């Protein structure tokens, strides 16, 4: 696979379909030489980004799609997940397991935390419909870190 290769996947706003994006990302990362554990990290991050796009961005609207653009360079794989929402207003705080287990905080709401924890870069961009996206990056130079 050449540096600069870009693959675009268009997903309906349907939970479960994020596995198609996971598989695509995993295949590209494997070809690039990422280790199995980094590929697992990427798969979870991509899945959570797609779920956020389907659920919060497109609000399960079957008429809207989620775009996933995967782009390679010599030392990194970039994944953009694009939806028709207004973008992430403020990143939620890290999950507090004590509050969750005591019913003081919603048991859900861990997706953004997992994304931020599992990839080297994660940044959310607000835009008009179809232009809000999250950009994820994993770098090959972290393989031996």
């Amino acid at each position, binding site marked *: 696979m050449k540096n600069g290769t870009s693959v675009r996947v268009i997903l309906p706003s349907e939970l479960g379909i994020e596995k198609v994006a996971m598989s695509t990302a995993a295949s590209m990362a494997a070809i690039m030489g990422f280790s199995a*554990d980094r590929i697992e990290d990427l798969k979870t991050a991509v899945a959570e980004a797609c779920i956020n796009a389907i659920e919060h961005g497109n609000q399960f609207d079957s008429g809207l799609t989620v775009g996933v653009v995967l782009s390679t360079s010599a030392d990194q794989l970039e994944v953009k997940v694009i939806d028709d929402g207004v973008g992430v207003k403020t990143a939620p705080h890290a999950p507090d397991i*004590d509050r969750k287990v005591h019913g003081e905080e919603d048991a859900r709401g861990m997706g953004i935390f997992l994304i931020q924890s599992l990839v080297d870069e994660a940044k959310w961009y607000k835009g008009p419909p179809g232009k809000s996206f999250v950009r994820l990056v994993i770098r090959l130079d972290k393989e031996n870190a």
Partner: protein
Amino acid sequence: MQTATKVSTRTTSVASGRIVNILAFGGDISSASKDTILGAYHSLNGAARNVLLDFTGVDYINSSGIAIVIQMLLEAGQAGTQTIGIFGLSPHFQKVFTMVGINKYAALHKDEAAALAAV
């Protein structure tokens, strides 16, 4: 597109004589799994003291699925008499469960033998 969640339950006992209820999951664990998993959990005898969650047959877990595990921990805490342990997670999901902090409330074991030995 989601693979259905499967849950089977079984009971065993350990050398100490303690009874252990095991909930074994299969397929995907996501938001769509909530009723299936919590239904199986609620169907356990209310006196169940030792519960193990077996993820050996799970193909996919997302954050909504992890939230269902947290819900069980919440209910176990409210009961006050129940201990939950977890086994069969892949190394990746052992890491994810630890990141979230689940290991503070449920011991994570490599396999069933290790989980039963800890009861």
